[in-house]
């Protein structure tokens, strides 16, 4: 029988010591409370007053997880190479990668790694005006779903180098890497390529700009000077 080999760490970046306290810091403690007199009842038109106690209890986690069968994609990002996978049976190309083909006729065929071109077409986009805690200070940012040339799927990423009101579905984009990739899907971002499609009228652009202005004000009020990840 073949001997089972133990795991070898090939490369490592240890998390900073500060993260080791992450779970312990707020664990289970009641760090604040309120006694409240509020409304009770199950119809807006028939409410009674009721008293209850409310507590603040911080709790959080740090994950340690692998990138599974598509780990090579993330290693590729660290080396500034955009990889996808290709089904050897039907030829579909996945970027983001899938380890097995999605078509049932291919019967979970294993895919092969391929290098993807750094070009694509913007399929759709949004300008985020609110987000999860970690991304609030980046607002407003343009999030785009791009079809990398040759791929059957779309990949998410930020679009920079363009005002939100100039972004259009179907525009061409170039894919770039951040200066220091860390093996994170956010290691790539998009910039506009080719002439603008200019489908939006001047009035529509002005309106969109006006709609987004309060976000910029909110962010600079809350976080001071605006900063971006790129």
């Amino acid at each position, binding site marked *: 029988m073949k001997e089972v080999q133990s795991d070898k760490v090939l490369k490592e970046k240890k998390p900073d010591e500060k993260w080791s306290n992450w779970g312990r810091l707020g664990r289970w403690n009641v760090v604040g409370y309120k006694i409240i007199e509020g409304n009770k009842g199950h119809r807006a038109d028939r409410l009674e007053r009721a008293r209850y106690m409310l507590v603040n209890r911080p709790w959080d986690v740090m994950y340690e997880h692998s990138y599974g069968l598509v780990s090579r994609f993330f290693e590729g990002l660290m080396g500034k190479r955009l990889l996808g996978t290709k089904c050897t049976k039907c030829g579909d190309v996945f970027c983001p990668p899938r380890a097995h083909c999605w078509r049932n006729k291919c019967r979970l065929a294993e895919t092969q790694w391929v290098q993807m071109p750094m070009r694509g077409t913007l399929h759709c986009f949004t300008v985020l005006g*609110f987000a999860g805690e970690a991304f609030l200070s980046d607002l407003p940012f343009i999030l785009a779903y791009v079809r990398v040339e040759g791929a059957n799927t779309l990949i*998410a*990423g930020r679009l920079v180098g363009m005002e939100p009101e100039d972004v259009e*579905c179907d525009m061409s984009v170039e894919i770039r890497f951040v200066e220091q990739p860390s093996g994170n899907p956010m290691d790539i971002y998009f910039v506009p390529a080719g002439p603008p499609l200019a489908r939006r009228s001047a009035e529509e652009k002005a309106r*969109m700009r006006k709609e987004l202005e309060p976000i910029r004000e909110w962010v600079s009020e809350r976080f001071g000077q605006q900063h971006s990840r790129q």
Partner: protein
Amino acid sequence: MRKSVMAKPLASIVSAGVTKFGAREGVYARELFVEAAQEAFDACPNLSPQRDIDGLFVGMMSESYEHQAHVAPMIADWLGILPVPAFRTEAACASSGVAMRCALYAIQSGMHEVVLVGGVEKMTNLRTAAVTEVLGMASDYPFEQWHGISFPGIFALMATAHMAKYGTTEEQLAKVAVKNHQNGTLNPKAHFQKRITVDDVLSSRVVAWPLKLYDCSPISDGASCIVMTAPKLARKFTNSPVHIVASVQAQDTIGLYERDDVTSMNVTRIAARKAYEMAGVRAEQIDVAEVHDCFTIAEIMAYEDLGFCSQGQGGTLVDDGITSLGGKKPVNTSGGLKAKGHPVGATGTAQACEIYLQLTSQAGKRQVDGAEIGLTQNVGGSASTGVVQLYRRGD
């Protein structure tokens, strides 16, 4: 006008209960569920919960809100119906739509005869940014969540594609919100109890352009439930049962990034087509519908995918008032997720509760006159789960 829909009932609804939806700070999820169940029990004096109920199905999306898993036995415990078997289903915002289907399996198999099906979510325990992250778990990890994409973001992506392809406007989106808020004022259980204008929507804060705050359903606490029986037993509990005559579920990719076209929901289209076939009903015959308007664009897409109009024409339906109360095809008379609120696990059965009220003429000021055939459409995640069900008034 009498309709000739005599499809065989799969199961019957004999009672229903919903809590007030909203920021329900002073109660736990299990207490919310008790509140909903109490209403359903009170409305059905022939039902003895302890004696009759032989199964419990609960939809709930996330343990993160209350740090509480294993909720099915907990709710059975709080309802005083131990030791009946209790099941929890999770399908993001379609959790209790899927719970209803599991209950149907149970009844259709003959192993259960009277079951309680419901859903609950206690969302306001976390701050808005944290709720955004918890809900975001229903999108793809790592290819969507890591970009800071939120569910408003996912539906905004669908919206920009819909606008680019069909010319749908921000005003049309806003009109969905205005309509549903108007309906919400007629529903004492609704989270929001105030009318809004198109201008209110358009000038509210952008959450994920083109969606503004008033295009989005709120973060709500709430629970809902129905008492479901084998059709042959329905008359034992009520003189006015509502029959479920079709129930279809479909799935799509977990990530929105793997779809060819994001302007239509495959799951709704497929499930609706099969459901109409199953019940022998045409889209035109639906008297009242509760659709999954987690965001205004989702209601417009639902009109199209349910066949209420052709692809791309959803905006004109709301322009013409066709889906308003008093229009030809009233949609979301309860206020919808938009105004009634969207405690995600509770939403699927809350939609069924509204159809139950409508088809038994108990919907009060928002009653659709003579409603006989109803539809619910419940969607989970980026429309990765879709449940479409059809109901008819008991004869």
